[in-house]
């Protein structure tokens, strides 16, 4: 292997000799990846062109992050030295003319090189999924793992596109508007709007008592009005009228008789308390994540769902009340026919956390899932498996695949929901004597960023009586076309075929019963 000056390169030979020979330059920044066993041959051969299915004979090269991020766009294929200009690269390449006899001595053609990603969690870190060209791995790394956000030095605003960042940098700090509250704005209209609604302005006018110097000298009448307005504010806030009256345009404060500018603030007799504006404080404060019973019981009526949409009060309360436990309790009380099929057991995390709950790591790293192995399934195959698994697996083991466990889920519910849950569970028990309890699943639609948002984040609640398996397959028809629908879906989704097995943009065959509405052809990016 060649020693190199500028780049940190480490090469690992996996020609099948069984021993790894590792050489590293002094600038090496990576630990040596362990020598890899030769990848399995049979599946790969057909798919040579796909990224991540390298030639088993190829030499696997692991470049350092620094090398990959380097802006030397012109890189020597032989030694990986980078150059800013193509001419320099060409000059350099001439130096790689190996004498004929040296080549013969190695006894083989220069091996194809494939490149792995240095990021350990990345799927391309695995030599089996190495990328075949240097440019590709550089691009991949920069986009996926590199600092792809351009950050403004002055204001720390981030941009994904360099030109946007440049455009911003020109403007940033050049025209700065500063609100008394300390916020800075680069645009005047944002500044003006903010200032109008910022509390700092209100405080400032309060300070402008009589005699306070201002930039615009005001007639005394206005200053009195200023005080009057403040009094009005206080009075208005203290007032609470129960009934809304006819359009009330009541001047809230007496105005001085000599008015130069009729500055009048007309206020209604009482503040409007629309639920959107002021949700009951208890509702918004009472909630932590997941599944706690909400204190607001207004929505626990028979038509919970309707009420969630219907009255605005409930809408506000829905911040807090939309917990799955409440929903389940409604279920229990509503005397629903208990032969409903199991609800959708969609993939969720184990425990109350859901797919939609905050993830500290990227979406590839679910807590219950190991770092992605090599997913080799086409979407068609996936749907097939979905169908088969539904039929083949017992409920609980399938669900375990999603990190769900029937019993653990229920236990959590019991702790949280006490009486209501117990009631429901009792019902459920009666109906599932022999079958593994199926877990009804909300989608775990917790909203991640707001801890006091009450979302039914857990999907482990309330087993529905499981007269049917998870996907409703293989156990008698539930609403019609069991496999017919699925195959139609697969056909449509898999599109027109061609290319590696997988989803294409092909127009696709129309699915059964789906009238293909006119679709625009996929057009190139418009900028």
């Amino acid at each position, binding site marked *: 292997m060649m020693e190199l000056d500028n780049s940190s390169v480490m090469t690992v030979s996996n020609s099948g000799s069984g021993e790894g020979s590792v050489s590293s330059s002094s600038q090496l920044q990576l630990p040596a990846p362990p020598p890899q066993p030769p990848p399995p041959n049979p599946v790969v051969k057909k798919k040579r062109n796909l990224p991540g299915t390298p030639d088993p004979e190829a030499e696997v090269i692991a470049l350092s992050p620094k090398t990959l991020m380097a802006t030397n766009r012109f890189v020597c294929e032989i030694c990986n030295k980078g150059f800013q200009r193509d001419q320099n690269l060409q000059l350099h390449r001439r130096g790689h003319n190996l004498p004929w006899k040296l080549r013969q001595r190695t006894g083989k053609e220069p091996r194809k090189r494939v490149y792995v990603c240095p990021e350990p969690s990345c799927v391309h870190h695995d030599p089996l999924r190495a990328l075949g060209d240097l440019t590709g791995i550089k691009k991949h790394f920069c986009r996926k793992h590199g600092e792809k956000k351009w950050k403004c030095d002055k204001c720390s*605003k981030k941009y*994904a596109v360099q030109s946007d960042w440049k455009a911003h940098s020109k403007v940033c700090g050049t025209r700065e508007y500063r609100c008394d509250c300390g916020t800075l704005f680069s645009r005047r209209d944002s500044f*003006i*709007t903010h200032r*109008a*609604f*910022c*509390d700092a*302005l209100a405080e400032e006018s309060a300070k402008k008592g009589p005699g306070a110097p201002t930039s615009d000298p005001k007639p005394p009448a206005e200053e009195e009005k200023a005080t009057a*307005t403040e009094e009005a504010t206080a009075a208005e806030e203290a007032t609470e009228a129960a009934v809304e*009256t006819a359009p*009330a*345009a009541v001047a809230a404060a007496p105005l001085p008789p000599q008015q130069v500018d009729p*500055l009048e*603030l*007309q206020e*209604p007799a009482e*503040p409007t308390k629309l639920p*959107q504006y*002021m*949700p009951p404080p208890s509702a*918004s404060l009472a909630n932590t994540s997941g599944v706690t019973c909400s204190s607001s019981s207004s929505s626990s009526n028979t038509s*919970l769902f309707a009420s969630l949409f*219907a009255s*605005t009060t409930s809408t506000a309360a829905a*911040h807090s009340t939309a917990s*799955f436990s409440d929903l389940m309790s409604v279920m229990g009380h509503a005397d629903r026919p208990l032969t409903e099929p199991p609800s959708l057991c*969609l*993939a969720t995390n184990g425990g109350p956390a859901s797919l939609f709950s*905050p993830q500290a790591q990227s979406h590839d790293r*679910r807590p219950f*899932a190991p770092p992605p*192995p090599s*997913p080799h*399934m*086409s*979407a068609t195959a996936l749907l097939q498996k*979905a*169908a088969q698994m539904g039929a083949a697996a017992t409920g609980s083991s399938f669900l375990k*695949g999603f990190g769900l466990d029937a019993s653990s889920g229920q236990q959590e519910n019991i702790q949280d929901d006490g009486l209501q849950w117990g009631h429901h569970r009792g019902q459920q028990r009666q109906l599932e004597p022999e079958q593994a309890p199926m877990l*009804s699943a909300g989608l775990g*639609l917790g*909203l*991640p*960023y*707001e801890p006091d948002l009450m979302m*039914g984040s857990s999907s482990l609640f309330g087993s529905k009586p499981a007269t049917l398996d998870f996907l409703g*397959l293989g156990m008698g028809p*539930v*609403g019609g076309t069991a496999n017919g*629908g*699925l195959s139609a879906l697969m056909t449509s989704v898999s599109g027109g075929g061609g290319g590696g*097995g*997988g989803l294409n*943009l092909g127009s*696709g065959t129309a699915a059964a019963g789906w009238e293909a*509405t006119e*679709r625009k052809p996929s057009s190139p990016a*418009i*900028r």
Partner: protein
Amino acid sequence: MRAELRSSTPGHISVPDPNPFDTPHGSLSGALKGCLGSLDGACIEKLLLHCATAVEANDATLVQQVMWVLNNIASAHGDPNQRLTSWFLRALVTRASQFCPTAVPSATTVLARARPMTATELVGYVDLTPWHRFGFTASNGAILKMVQGRRKVHVLDFSIYYCTQWPTLIDALSERPEGPPLLRITMPSARPPVPPYLNVSTEEIGLKLANFAKSRDVALEFHVVKATSACSGDALSGHSNFLQELASCLLDPSSLGLREGEALVVNCQSWLRYLPEGSGTAMDDLSSRDAFMELIHRLNPCLVTVTDEDADLDSARLSSRIMSCFNYLWIPFDALETFLPKDNPQRLAYETDIGQKIENIIGFEGEERTERLESGARFSQRMTRAGFESFPFDEETVGEVKLLVDEHASAWGMKREEDTLVLTWKGHNSVFTAAWVPSGYDE
């Protein structure tokens, strides 16, 4: 368009593994995630449509299957495609729980609501992208032009954005060469029950506005119009309440407090979409948008400014709506992705509000489906039918709008469609704004 949202490794579904079940169960979902995560918009759209079809056909099995697949794509913290998918999936679950209850019991669904914002948060919200301020700037420019020389100006504000439009108008009026007019801003207390949500009352907003106006030496009267008749409250949905209240205050113009000699301006910002289409003639259904326009016309305003989103999201067919929603709402998701990190709270809040819109458009029907957006072209036709002619924006206003757009990411653009201005993202229409005067307006 959808090309924008494709993953950077196109067509990236790899070799079918003959024995997927060799992978341990625990990794299956992870595998799916990895595999499906790179699906592009076209595929997701297909899946969504399939789900809709299945719901319409009451095919519980297929519904569950497709949702299962979708759920493996969806992620509220993923890339724009995944985020969109997550909201669409929620909406579909909502729908399925109503219309195909065997597939998804209604208790499963949970509605998404972002928490109410403070006033300053709201200001930041509307300034995240030019989406809202585009209309503000254009409308205010038209208003300024129209009320030149007028001493009294009365703005009737129909907007869901709590007067965030007005500080800049007040500011501009304060700098008029002839001095500011006496400004009145009146708005109905009725507001559709849609986001964004504010945690203070309209009156408080009015107070702040008045304070600000005072600081700019502009006389401002702020007035909130209550319904003339007490609404029955609980029996009606929030939206019906809204429609009733609105109709009642328009039917009784005296409640608006109009005065002689004032230049009346009507501002409709993201508002008309919440009025039902109506049937028959305009006045058959008093809450319809045609009736609204007719009533507005009768007030003899000197100007009507209309801003709304430029898409048709009101088709009677669910599948059409899904498609048009997906092909339109990718825009704000894409825009936010370009400059805000994945977990940014403002971004998530904004996306949640869009999610609520999606939920309404896809999850509901009839009266509950309150979002009935129609495109600028259709609105324009409606205005013409209602007896208005277009009032072109002057060059100064257009210049200001252009400046605004240019100060944001380079993908934002602006174009003119006759007298309408349209905000574009990567060339796609997002928001339209136009101004109108009643035909034969008499001063």
